[in-house]
């Protein structure tokens, strides 16, 4: 075979998870010294694709070529040996080990012969890497003690430490501020200039425009196309990603905004957020946005009592409310749709019906025993109402696609009589069809008089759905914007600008 101009080439990759086809006949080509953006909606299969490249997942079908030679990675170490390094989207670290160890895990520096780890050398090099990335914490710090953004920096340092020829970054900027992102751009460019190739996944268009020369788009697990960044218009790219014009996705209906349901004042939790305040009214959709790790989830969780706050107060329907747990919150009429539906939202090994009825079991209990007939009737009614695609209510939730799983989580909330719905990233990892169904549902619920808090990282979603938007950054609300005059720029400005609170120079002096 002739010497290939591509360092990496994948053909016809298909990867199936139980119930989900995460990749369906996907193609990809990467040139030497290129920064290649990989884009696509949530759940399009990007992260899965990365894991196929790095040998974490074995694809059911397809071939992979490295410098024109066919390779077959059966284990992550194979990929590492071949010079591929990855920064995974979900921070994959060892909280009980030091930063140095996290950086060098898998490729520790050892003395030849004795196999002794060269700690001082590793600490030194880790320190150097961190300094280059503008971080200030000591490499001897325990990983678990760092914030999400700091952990993300360590992940980047990890990829840099191996001197890789192919570097894959899965949403590395998601938790970073403007300055930190800028630092990352510079480093990426330097690496590219030194001959490395980079695959860069991001939902932020500006990342792509700033860095990449090529862009590949996946949609619904399928390969859509590859373009030169200069050759494709922003609109075409969106159509490629979403599959249709974005406007028709958001069926926002006008709801009558009623009385105030919820007022939060000066809410704070040490180490997570502080001085958070907002109000929510009947029929209103309040957006809560910001970078990953900004503290939105934490705020929502304290509202339903999963976590405890230590400052401030919550006024619900005119009275101060302190709930001790989700059950009490449900009793009072506050429901929470958690961020991670597989870990927090569903009992995966259970059927659809059982999942739906879990929050309100006592409703179907007669003299102690569960009345199965009644339970199944309600499960059926609600599963149909949210139009779950399945044959029967006995189908296991684990066999459903992401979107349908999310619908089941919605159905769970509908069993209780609620006034406030807190939806944490309700469309994360959901296919387009299900997405619009979920948006329609949210709209209908608002019309029906619910007060809704919609947490989302997706700009179009926030802009398309919300009546008001609160933007969080590093645990504080930095702006509350009205529907009128709501622009992407305004939100980005509020969520990414890091003048003020974060000050690396000052911290560096200390460390």
């Amino acid at each position, binding site marked *: 075979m002739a010497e290939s101009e591509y360092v990496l080439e994948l053909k016809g990759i298909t990867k199936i998870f139980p119930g989900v086809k995460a990749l369906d006949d996907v193609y990809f080509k990467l040139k030497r010294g290129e920064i290649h953006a990989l884009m696509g909606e949530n759940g399009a299969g990007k992260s899965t694709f990365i894991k196929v490249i790095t040998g974490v997942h074995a694809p059911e079908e397809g071939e992979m070529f490295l410098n024109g030679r066919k390779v077959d990675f059966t284990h992550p170490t194979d990929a590492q040996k071949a010079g591929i390094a990855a920064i995974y989207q979900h921070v994959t670290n060892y909280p*009980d080990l030091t930063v140095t160890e996290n950086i060098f*895990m*898998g490729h*520790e520096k050892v003395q030849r012969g004795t196999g002794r*780890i060269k700690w001082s050398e590793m600490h030194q090099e880790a320190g150097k890497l961190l300094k280059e990335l503008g971080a200030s914490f000591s490499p001897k710090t325990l990983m678990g003690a760092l914030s999400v953004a700091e952990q993300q920096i360590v992940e980047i340092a990890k990829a840099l430490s191996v001197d890789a020829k192919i570097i894959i970054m899965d949403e590395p900027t998601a938790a970073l501020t403007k300055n930190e992102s800028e630092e990352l751009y510079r480093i990426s460019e330097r690496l590219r200039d030194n001959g490395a190739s980079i695959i860069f996944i991001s939902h932020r268009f500006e990342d792509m425009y700033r860095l990449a020369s090529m862009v590949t788009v996946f949609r619904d697990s399928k390969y859509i196309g590859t373009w030169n960044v200069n050759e494709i218009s922003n609109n075409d790219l969106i159509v490629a990603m979403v599959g249709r014009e974005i406007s028709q996705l958001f069926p926002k209906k006008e709801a009558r905004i009623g009385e105030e349901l919820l007022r939060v004042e000066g809410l704070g939790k040490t*180490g997570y957020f502080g001085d958070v305040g907002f109000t929510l009214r009947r029929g209103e959709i309040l957006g809560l946005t910001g970078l990953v790790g900004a503290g939105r989830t934490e705020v929502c969780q304290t509202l339903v009592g999963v976590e405890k706050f230590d400052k401030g107060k919550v006024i619900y329907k005119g009275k101060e409310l302190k709930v001790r747990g989700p059950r009490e919150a449900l009793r009072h009429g506050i429901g929470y749709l958690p961020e991670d539906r597989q870990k927090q939202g569903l009992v995966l090994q259970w059927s659809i019906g059982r999942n739906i009825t879990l929050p309100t079991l006592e409703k179907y209990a007669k003299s102690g025993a569960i009345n199965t007939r009644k339970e199944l009737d309600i499960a059926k009614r609600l599963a149909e109402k949210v139009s779950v695609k399945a044959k029967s209510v006995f189908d296991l939730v684990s066999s459903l696609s992401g979107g349908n799983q999310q619908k089941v989580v919605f159905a769970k909330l509908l069993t209780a009589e609620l006034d406030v719905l807190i939806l944490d990233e309700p469309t994360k990892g959901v296919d387009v069809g299900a997405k619009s169904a979920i948006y329609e549902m949210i709209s209908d619920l608002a019309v029906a008089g619910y007060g809704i808090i919609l947490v989302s990282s997706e700009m179009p979603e926030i802009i398309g759905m919300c009546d008001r938007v609160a933007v969080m950054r590093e645990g504080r609300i930095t702006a509350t914007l009205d529907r009128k005059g709501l622009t992407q720029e305004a939100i980005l400005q509020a969520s990414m600008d890091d003048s*003020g609170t974060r000050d690396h120079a000052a911290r560096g002096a*200390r460390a």
Partner: protein
Amino acid sequence: MSAHAQSVKQAEQVVNGGRSMSAFIAKFRELGLLAFIVILAVGVQIRNHSFLTWENLTDIATNTAILSILAVGMMLVIITRGIDLSIGATLAFAGMVAALTVKHNPGLHPVAAVLVGVGIGIGCGLVIGFLVSWMKILPIIATLGIMNVFRGFTFEASGGKWVSAHQMPASFKGIATGSFLGINNLILIAIVIYIVAYYFVSHTRTGRRIYAIGSNPDSAEVSGIRTGRILMLVYTIMGGLAGLAGVLWVSKFASAQGDTASGYEMSVIAACVLGGVSIAGGVGKISGILLGSILLGILNNALPMINVSAFWQMFIQGAIILIAVLVNALVKRGIDRNNLMRRKI
């Protein structure tokens, strides 16, 4: 704006203090255990003046040596989020086979006897490692079942008989009673094992990976650590150490019985827990388990010496374990709280 700047500064001071504070508290755990041991020792010394004598300290060290050797293996197992309930049985089995071997071959070199025991132990460990890493059986269940099986083997091997002192050659008994440079062999063996273990867990890749798979098995998976092999290794080390302990035990007490060390696994686990090894995995220090073993050793030695009624001894040991783990938990919370305070919002 200036108010803001000031608050930033204040926050920084808190952060600054917080960081050194948390480092201090993290150290405090071992120091606290040490302090507790010292206070206990002084208290006992006041009641009985022969406590802090060279001879008694040597006795404590000799009697704790076997426990502390087992604690090393158990620590590794617990760090990987496992547990091994079968070590008492493995110890007995290996000890019995070694004793039977020397009984029938009195001329055998003691090192060969040790190797026999260690070999049996490694075999037992491999079986458990296979069940845990290949069959994916939960360690607590696998070792619970295996414990019965090995105990049965021990009885079967001996045919219900004991191997007693006069059936063991002096050279074999000398393994535990002999000394080198004036230090008892058991203590020496324990010291060597601790040095090797320290080097292993903090200066070799494999050692660190044991911590990694306990700290976050999912990350270990994506970063290419061969979890199965490491689990296999850990249980094999545990088995090997239990085998060694079996030979030492039999040599020390000059007697091999079917029910040797029955229930001893609980003491070993207690030593680890006292030493700050976290059942949740990923956490555990050699210095910690050394102190944990010593604390248990001192309790075993001191309670009889200060005439604590035999009927109170069990309660006191349990209470000390409970208090130690509760204090440990509270200290850990303190550290976490400090880490949170350190974060800026």
